[in-house]
């Protein structure tokens, strides 16, 4: 489980502790996909180039310069902190590489200039990043649940039912599989059994989601409000 609560962020930034490598690794695992997608979206980089930039960012800023130790709850959410540092890094890197002069359209240049000068642009960048973050939280929760379900046959069916009935319609616009088809496909005794298993699967997902969110907030009591906030971000 990625320990991105503030205590873990602090550990990741404290090189005097043995745990920093592990904590930093799990921090990176959670944030890396969002950072890459953010660069693709914000700077219109190709995915490969965004991967390279994030890799360089992680090595130079996170590993060598240890910017994580500068993050504190007083400076706002960790994701906002890391976004600001990454944007500075990407901008500097683009300029240093001369890519800005050669390739950027006027629009790209304006977007880069907006980074720190226009509050409106800053807010929309932050919103876009928050939306990516909300998606990443869901992706992480789904990946964890899928992993856990894959361990036993009894649990695999929970994932299969959730996918057929809930995830398919949400992620792929698929029609929810009717219960009588679920019964046939998964060899269940009745539609009611399918319904009960689906309730169990939803509970498992809700628990997993809360575990993931719990690791990204300072205190347990913030979990539900963070979930509401992530939902609000995606509902816009």
């Amino acid at each position, binding site marked *: 489980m990625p320990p991105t609560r503030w205590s873990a962020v602090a550990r990741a930034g404290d090189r005097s502790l043995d745990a920093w490598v592990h904590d930093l690794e799990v921090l990176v695992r959670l944030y890396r996909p969002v950072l890459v997608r953010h660069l693709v979206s914000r700077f219109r980089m190709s995915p490969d180039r965004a991967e390279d930039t994030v890799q360089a960012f992680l090595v130079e800023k996170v590993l060598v310069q240890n910017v994580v130790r500068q993050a504190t709850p007083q400076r706002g959410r960790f994701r906002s902190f890391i976004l600001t540092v990454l944007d500075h890094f990407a901008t500097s890197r683009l300029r240093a590489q001369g890519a800005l002069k050669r390739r950027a359209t006027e629009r790209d240049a304006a977007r880069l200039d907006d980074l720190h000068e226009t509050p409106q642009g800053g807010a929309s960048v932050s919103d876009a990043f928050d939306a990516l973050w909300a998606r990443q939280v869901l992706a992480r929760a789904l990946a964890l649940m899928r992993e856990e379900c894959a361990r036993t046959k009894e649990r695999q069916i929970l994932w299969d039912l959730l996918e057929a009935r*809930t995830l398919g319609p949400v992620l792929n*616009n698929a029609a929810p599989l009717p219960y009588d088809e679920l019964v046939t496909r998964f060899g269940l005794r009745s539609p009611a059994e399918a319904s*009960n298993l689906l309730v169990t699967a939803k509970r498992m997902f809700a628990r997993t989601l809360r575990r993931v969110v719990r690791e990204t907030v300072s205190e347990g009591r913030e979990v539900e409000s963070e979930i509401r906030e992530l939902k609000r971000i995606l509902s816009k």
Partner: protein
Amino acid sequence: MNTADRSTFDADHRQLSALFDVSADGGGQLWEDNELGAVLRHQLAVPIRADLRGLDPKLARRFDALAEPPDRAVESFGGLLIHPAPPVEWLKAVKDFAKTCRARPRGPIPHEIATVLYFACLAAALVRGGARITSLADGALVGGFRWVADQPWVDDANRALAEEALRFLGVQTGTRTV
């Protein structure tokens, strides 16, 4: 990055936001109307004895102690509920079965179906058995009968039974709540 991750990042954001609504109690609409109709039809055709025995040993013993039904038609849930003179003790047993199912998150039948069975038993006892087998006040009964009558997936016989019970309680019927 795997397919599910890609889907999470590519999916429509408003649809995706619904995943944050999946609550720890497994809530959210599990059944479509047509599915509830199919499950109710199935449930009404099932022998009462089999389901009551499977749910709870105490309920099973109580049911076994009941007198034999006046005719075999009563042996299914549907048969009992449409019978012109249903045995009240059987209605009580089925009512308790439905109540137990409603109270159990992982009961053998969907919550909505259990609710229909529950209020259908109360209605049948009231209008055909001449007995009140619940301590619910009239207001709660009216609310329950109205709910049954308003569900588009409820079969005609049980909707008619709920409306008859509403009239029995002095409530005007004929307009569906929307």
